[in-house]
């Protein structure tokens, strides 16, 4: 028996199995998405169509009956899943992204669905594909996530139903950690690259920007480009079978990202924080007037952010501590609305911090 050869073949089989599971998972995710936009769960004509398609595509080793049986059990499983009425949450990035970790920490019962862009998450919630969407708004090192704030500013439909702070611990990942000397290039999201700039410089590694941290890990694991590693989470290492060369490689150890959870309907439970958006007229003291309303009422502001909105005008994001069910808050917000333009109440929610 040729042990070395057998070992290699088995390694290939393990790899294929892992891929099959990933793909099955992806198929189920899409079935769940479909269930959000179709009328009934069972669609016989669609099943027939699929069976016809795959039976014409059989490989020479695969028996037609086998494929049919396999797909019938797939359909069964897919239906059972859809009947459960699972709630979906869209996040930007590939599985293993920090956004997904935050989503799981916010509510582990939700099914997290990967999206390529922030806009895709936003649109998905609007069209009802996802019950929720999770988006990063600010990071302790990288600052404001501009694109997300822009999306929030230009929307008048979605509500903030939750907020969570997620610690971000970047790791350098590579297929074989012991071969760390070979690493020359590192793929990751631009935010992660800037957060690990000093580590990359110290070790003379060339950063390459990619759409997502976990996506970079996936690329390194699947395509194994020469001498290339990825910066991503330890969860991504686990998901894509990569090894951690070094943990916590960020410039500053207190690296945290705050995420908003969005939904079409406002949340009914008691919240302890609110977010509003408004703009003010181009006159002296208008912003000051708004802020003094909060100061006079002794309300603690936790965030104030300005975003340029078209020619010379600014929109302001304001987070403060308080509940919309509180009459005092309602009164104050009425006053704020009278003193601002384009006022919008974004939601009342519970702020959570994940240690």
């Amino acid at each position, binding site marked *: 028996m040729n042990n070395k050869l057998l070992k290699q073949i088995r390694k290939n089989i393990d790899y294929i199995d892992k891929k099959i599971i990933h793909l099955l998972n992806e198929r189920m995710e899409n079935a769940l998405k479909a269930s959000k936009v179709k009328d009934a769960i069972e669609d016989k004509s669609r099943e027939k169509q699929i069976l016809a398609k795959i039976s014409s595509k059989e490989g020479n080793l695969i028996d037609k009956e086998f494929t049919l049986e396999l797909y019938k059990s797939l359909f069964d499983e897919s239906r059972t899943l859809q009947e459960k009425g699972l709630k979906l949450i869209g996040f930007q990035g590939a599985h293993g992204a920090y956004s997904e970790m935050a989503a799981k920490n916010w509510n582990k019962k939700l099914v997290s669905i990967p999206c390529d862009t922030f806009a895709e998450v936003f649109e998905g919630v609007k069209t009802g594909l996802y019950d929720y969407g999770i988006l990063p708004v600010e990071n302790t090192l990288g600052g404001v996530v501009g694109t997300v704030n822009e999306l929030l500013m230009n929307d008048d439909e979605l509500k903030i139903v939750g907020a969570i702070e997620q610690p971000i611990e970047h790791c350098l990942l590579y297929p074989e*950690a*012991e071969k*760390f*000397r070979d690493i020359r290039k590192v793929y990751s999201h631009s935010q992660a690259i800037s957060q690990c700039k000093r*580590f990359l410089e*110290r*070790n*003379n590694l060339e950063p390459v920007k990619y759409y997502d941290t976990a996506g970079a890990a996936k690329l390194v694991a699947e395509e194994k480009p020469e001498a290339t590693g990825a910066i991503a989470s330890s969860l991504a290492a686990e998901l894509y079978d990569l090894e951690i*060369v*070094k*943990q916590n*490689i960020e410039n500053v150890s207190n690296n945290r990202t705050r995420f908003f959870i969005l939904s079409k309907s406002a949340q009914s439970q008691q919240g302890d924080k609110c977010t509003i958006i408004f703009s003010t007229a181009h006159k002296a003291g208008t912003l000051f007037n708004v802020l003094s309303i909060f100061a006079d009422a002794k309300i603690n502001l936790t965030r104030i952010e300005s975003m340029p909105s078209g020619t010379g005008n600014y929109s302001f994001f304001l987070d403060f501590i308080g509940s919309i069910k509180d009459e005092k808050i309602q009164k104050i917000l009425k006053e704020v609305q009278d003193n601002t333009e384009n006022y919008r109440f974004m939601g009342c929610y519970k702020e959570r911090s994940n240690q």
Partner: protein
Amino acid sequence: MDLKLASRKNKKKTIVDVDGIKIGEELVVIGGPCAVESEEQTLKAARAVKAGGGKILRGGAFKPRTSPYSFQGLGLKGLRILEKAKQETGLPIISEVMDSRDVTWVAEYVDILQIGARNMQNFSLLKEIGKTKKPTMLKRGMYSTLEEWLNCAEYILSEGNPNVILCERGIRTFESYTRNTLDLSMIPSVKEVTHLPIIIDPSHGTGKLSLIEPMAKAAIAAGADGLMVEVHPNPKNAKSDQQQQMTPEQFKKFMKNINALDNFING
């Protein structure tokens, strides 16, 4: 001696600050296993060092061995174990770097880089380490004179790294009862010609458990800035240096005795 930066003419004293521990100012004891063998062994040794009052944890991840067939160390895995031991005990880490390609990587994990006796005159390694600002302990080569040793320190200093600590670990003589001859005359000699702190390694210097404490005491009396000793939870089963590693109990007693002497001499 043709020294520029290492010469005492230029500077009175170098104090190397490692996480607030000031080498050159207070007596600093470094303890830990010869080699990182497993997580359990290293954590146990780290706890013993901490409990005994040691300030810094040692442990080899990359091991220079006389024979290529001897245990070569756990490499990166060993560094990760040391990192874990630091997280648990808070003790800073010292570990040897042998390959100039590894310098920046080992520096990511440890607080002090160690250059082993066999690599003392590995000039490309010295230059690479000089480019980092990492505190570095330069062991004296087993066939080296003081002048050769300090010239190696000069290599690191001249590249821009001022944080050099010297370590005497014994030299080769015709004596065979001890593993090496621990040259304690180097302590006052070093103090005469350079401002760099000096640490004594009586474990390698003698190779005999029974001689470690007497020589440590002699080193303190001669003005050493610190000691480096080997501590292993189970020395009999160690993968290297079985004859010279202390048990946790022995280390505790050792610390009590040398602290008493240190208090007597240095107050």
